[in-house]
Each structure stands twice: as C-alpha cells, then as structure tokens.
C-alpha cells in the first residue's frame, strides 16, 4: 500500500514536469526567433547574393510560418538535432555533450563545498540562537550572498595566484601541458581515479578548488540561512519537547527528530540554490576560463551564434527541471505526508 502510493507519487511528479518542459521549449523557441540578426545572412557567408541568402533561408525553414517553424523545431529537438554552431563548426549537441561534464563537475564540487560548510554552521547558529556565534554566522552568510561571484573569483585569483602563488593559473580544468584522462564519465576527478592516473587527479583537483569555492560561497548563504531557520522552528516544536520529556539522548533528538524534519525545508530551498549555482556557473567559468557550457554560451552570445545559445538555454533549463524533480522525489521519500 505504502509502496504503491510512493510509486504513484513519483509518477505524478514526473507527469507534473511535462508542462514545465513544454513551457521551456516554447520560451526557448520564442527567444531564439526574437534574436537580433538574420541567421540566413550569417550562414550564407559575407559575400552571398540575395538569392543565396534566400536559399539558405529556405533550407533552414525560416521562410515558413511560425507554427510550422515551431513544429520543425520540435521535430529536430526530438531527433537530438540542436543545429550547428557557427563559431565552432560542430553540431551544438556535440559541443554541449563535451562541455557539460566540465560544468557539472564544477557545480557538484561547489555544492559539496557549500553543504559541507553551510549545514554545520546553520545547525550551530540554530542551537545557540542570538549568541555571538549566531550573530557572526548570520553576518558572514549575508556577506557571502552579497559577493558578486565574478568579483570573488577575481579577488581569489589576485590573492592566491598573483600574490601568494599557491593556486594554479586560471587555465581551465588542467594546466596547458597535461592531457586529460580517458573519457569515461567526463568528470576528470572520477575518470582519473578510475584510470589510476593520480597525477592528473591532483592536477584536476587543484584546478577545481578555486572556481568551486567561488561558486560555492554564493550558495553557502541560502543553505545556511534555511538550515538555521528551519532548525530553529523544529527545535521549538511540540514534538521536540515531547522527545525531550522522554529523556531521549540529545544527539538522537538532534539527528532523528530535529534535523530530519528540518531537512524538508532545506530540500525545498535546494531548487533556489541550484538556480543560483547554474546561473553563476556562467560567470565563474568566464573568470577561470573553465571550458564548460557557461563559457561556451558567453562566446556564442558575443558572436550571435543562435543555435548554440538556444542549445545552452535549453540544456540548462532541462538540467534544472531534472534537479528539481529529484528534489521533489527525495522530499517524497522523507516526508510520508507528501502526495497524500
């Protein structure tokens, strides 16, 4: 019975994501049709005649009405055809799949960094509300969310690379002389471990530290804030008082009773946190010359490479929907009341 309702809950969540996906596809389509510049002129090349341009336009389907263009667009998407990038000359799909692991690795590392620091800080602040520690943590968190990511990155570079020279140069995922490990997952840290190439692992790790911290600092604040607030709310709840009245061990209360319940609100804000992380990714990648899809998008934007921009926005949105979906499902696993 319980199993069945869980399964139904998951299916319901999956179905609920469909309208979002449709919305994303529609918006992306509208945005790209509104892009300045005529792609036909672009593809036909600088010295093309009007006829050649028209020909290109027809072959791209741009002479059709908008609804038909939309249908074609969907057809292409379903076939996995995201178009070709003008700047790289590759298919957009190829570009994105080669660059996505870099962005993912960075984002995951930043998330781990943020959670590892923010959760304990939030809990400490909630356990001693209005203490000196609480005030300090709260101030640091507010300061953290006030830091422009691109500025933090530059600042860290200046201090740790230029001044102290303990950080590697911002040359991307590896220095210029090292060759990447064999591609298995595309995540260098994992691939290098799997292939046993520890030198590359250390290299990749060192390269990752500064961008990940830069990105993570921005996500620290929301997580710590929510952890503190929800822990405070839970700690003052009636069931914690009940648990205390039964003489349960403080750690048991903190973990099984308080934190598990607080986790529910923390999970719900993870959506916002991911929104922050994926958005700031673009800025951090630009600062550290990180070869992910963010820096790809920035280059594409500058050269009005519309297929690439569209592919980027779509990928990010789909990634984000998948993340939100997983949050929802995890939430449903923890909270028996979900989906009732």
């Amino acid at each position: 019975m319980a199993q069945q309702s869980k399964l139904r809950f998951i299916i319901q969540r999956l179905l609920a994501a469909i309208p979002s996906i449709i919305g994303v596809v529609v918006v992306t389509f509208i945005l790209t049709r509104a892009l300045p510049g005529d792609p036909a002129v672009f593809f036909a090349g600088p010295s093309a005649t009007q006829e050649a341009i028209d020909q290109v336009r027809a072959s791209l389907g741009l002479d059709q009405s908008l609804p038909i263009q939309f249908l074609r667009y969907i057809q292409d998407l379903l076939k996995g055809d995201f178009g070709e990038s003008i700047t790289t000359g590759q298919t957009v799909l190829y570009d994105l799949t080669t660059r996505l692991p870099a962005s993912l690795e960075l984002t995951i590392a930043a998330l781990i960094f943020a959670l590892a620091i923010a959760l304990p800080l939030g809990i400490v602040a909630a356990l001693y509300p209005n203490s000196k520690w609480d005030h300090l943590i709260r101030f640091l968190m507010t300061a953290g969310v006030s830091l422009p990511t691109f500025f933090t990155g530059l600042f860290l570079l200046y201090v740790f690379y230029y001044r102290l020279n303990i950080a590697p140069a911002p040359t991307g995922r590896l220095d210029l002389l090292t060759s990447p490990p064999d591609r298995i997952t595309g995540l260098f840290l994992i691939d290098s471990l799997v292939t046993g190439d520890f030198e590359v692992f250390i290299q990749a790790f060192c390269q990752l530290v500064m961008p990940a911290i830069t990105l993570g600092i921005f996500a620290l604040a929301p997580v710590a804030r929510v952890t503190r607030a929800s822990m405070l709310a839970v700690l003052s709840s009636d069931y914690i008082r009940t648990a205390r009245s039964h003489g349960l061990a403080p750690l048991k209360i903190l973990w099984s009773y308080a934190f598990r319940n607080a986790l529910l609100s923390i999970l719900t804000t993870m959506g916002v946190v991911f929104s922050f992380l994926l958005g700031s990714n673009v800025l951090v990648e630009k600062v550290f010359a990180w070869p992910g899809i963010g820096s790809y998008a920035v280059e594409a934007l500058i050269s009005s490479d519309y297929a690439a921009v569209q592919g980027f926005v779509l990928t990010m949105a789909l990634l984000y929907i998948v993340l939100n979906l997983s949050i929802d499902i995890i939430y449903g696993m923890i909270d028996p009341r979900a989906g009732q």
Partner: protein
Amino acid sequence: MISLDPPPLLSVDHLRKYFPTARRSFLNRDAAPRLLHAVDDVSFTLEAGESVGLVGESGCGKSTLVRLLTRLLDPTSGEIRFEGREIGAIAAPKFARHPLRSQLQLVFQDPHDSLNPRHTAFDSIAAPLKQLGGFQASPLLTARIEELAELVGLPAALLSRFPHQLSGGQKARVGIARAIALHPKLLILDEPTSALDVSVQAVILHLLQDLQARLGMSYLFVSHDLNVVRLLCDRIIVMYLGQIIEMGPTDAIFDNPRHPYTQALIAAIPDPGTPPQPLQLQGEPRSPIDPDPQVCRLYGRCPHGVEACTTTTPHLEPMGPDHVAACHRADVLNPAQLR
C-alpha cells in the same frame, strides 16, 4: 409549524454542501470524484426572537452550515429562506451588497483572528456602517460607534486601540459590536466564548443575553459545549456527520435525549457533583467522505446498533412536543437511565 402567516425568520430546506476531496488526476481519470458530505440534507426553521443552539463535535459540519447560512459559501443544493425570501441561490460574492446582508450577521469564534490587525476597534466597528449602513465618516458615525461601544460595554477610550492592544474579552466585545452595528435580525454566534477564559466567558454570555433582550434579535448559537449552549437557548439542534440527528426544546434534550449520540454528549459533560458516567460511544466516527446512504452514521460507535441500522438510515421522527430524533431504537432506549 402549521400556521404559515408570517414565514419563519430563517428556514433551511434540504441544504447540502459537498466538497470534492481529490482532484481527478491523469492516473485515475475514471474514478468518480470523492465527495466530503459536510452538510447533508439539513432542514430546520428558526423563528423571530428565538435562540437556537447548534451542537456537535468537530467535523460535524457546524462551521460549514454557519458559512452557508451567512452566505459566505454557496450550497451544493437546497434552500435557505430568510423572512420567506430565498437567499441560498444568490452567489456569495454578490450577497456582499445584498440588502439582507446587514440582517444576517456573525460573531466569530476567535476574537483575535476576526479583527484586522491593522484596523483600530473603531475602524472594525465602522466597516459595516460605512459599507452597508450608508454612513460617511462624520460625527454621526462616531456617535453611532460610541453608542455601540457602550451597548457592548467597551470603554470608548479603547476604540482607538489596535487588536493586539486589547484583551480577549475586549476583542470579543468589538466583534459583537461590529456584528450588531446594523441591527441584524439574526445573529449567528460561532463558538463565541470557546477562545476565552471562564472568567471572561461568563461576562460575554451575560452580555449576549442582555443584548438579545434589548434588541430582540434571534440567535443561532453554535458550540461544541452543551453546557454553554444550554444557558442561552430555547431549542437545541444536534448535528452528527453533516446531519441533524436530534432537535428539540432545551429541557427535553437535556432531560429526555432520545438519540444515543445526544445521550453520549450529555453524559460526557463533566459534572463535579457526580462520578464520571461510563463511556457511551466506542471507536471513531465514520468517514464523512461518500458515506453509505443506507447506513446510520453512528453505526459502529453506537452501543445500541442493530441490523436495521445498516439497511436504512433513520429519519427524524417526532419524540415529543417539538422534539424529533433520528434513531431506529429511540423508542426502546430508556433515557431515564441517564442521570
């Protein structure tokens, strides 16, 4: 009931309110929507100048009924007649400006929650006068509000205060002053004292009795506490799971309850003079969602249930003068055993 010349002040006829509980989803498209029968075929009348108590436990549909009668909620079916005029069919948002709006007012359960935190006591009492009474901001309005404050025993100095600056009893008085501002003919009291301490409860009950005598209003006094209802009401209606199961004069209900549920309610009143009565009901109420129309809703909890209770729902039958109850076994049960 037979003489029809002046219609009763309020008459409710086969009133129903069903709430859908779950929306149909992609997964079970074919499933019929499950309906919560909050108010299920309720009929009663209330005469001018009368005080009627409406009693029942949480979830019995009292609050829904109150919201239907005060026209804050639209019924699923049935009629609500006020002075002979059908008002149940007027959509709730439209009723806001209906001429009868001012005649049918409500005193809320929670005096704090029912006052806008950003309005002073004066503003709160002024709202109906301005919206429905045609008063403008004027010395006339001020005079009227001060008069009302005096009527409910609220010192005029407190009129400029915000709700959080007033005590529970004072807030209750503001709520009452607002409700009687336009001389309603029917005042519905929704658990008006349940959020108050006993020390204040007595004051408010006295005030309500006094106001009724002076203004000649009818009361529908809703409560879960028979003990309190008894003090103010001539007649009592007992509800269980959306239906009226017994109705009659206060004395008859107390001294000669005929429905097992009413009997249980009365037995459960703590009485310092006597030792606790043995428990009358067992188990939990049945679900109000799509109840079986053939089964008595108390069946399963009732100590007197028989076969017939599962095949035909009992209807309200006369038990004495003005006294009706819906139980197959009402004749057999001996109320004299109580108390």
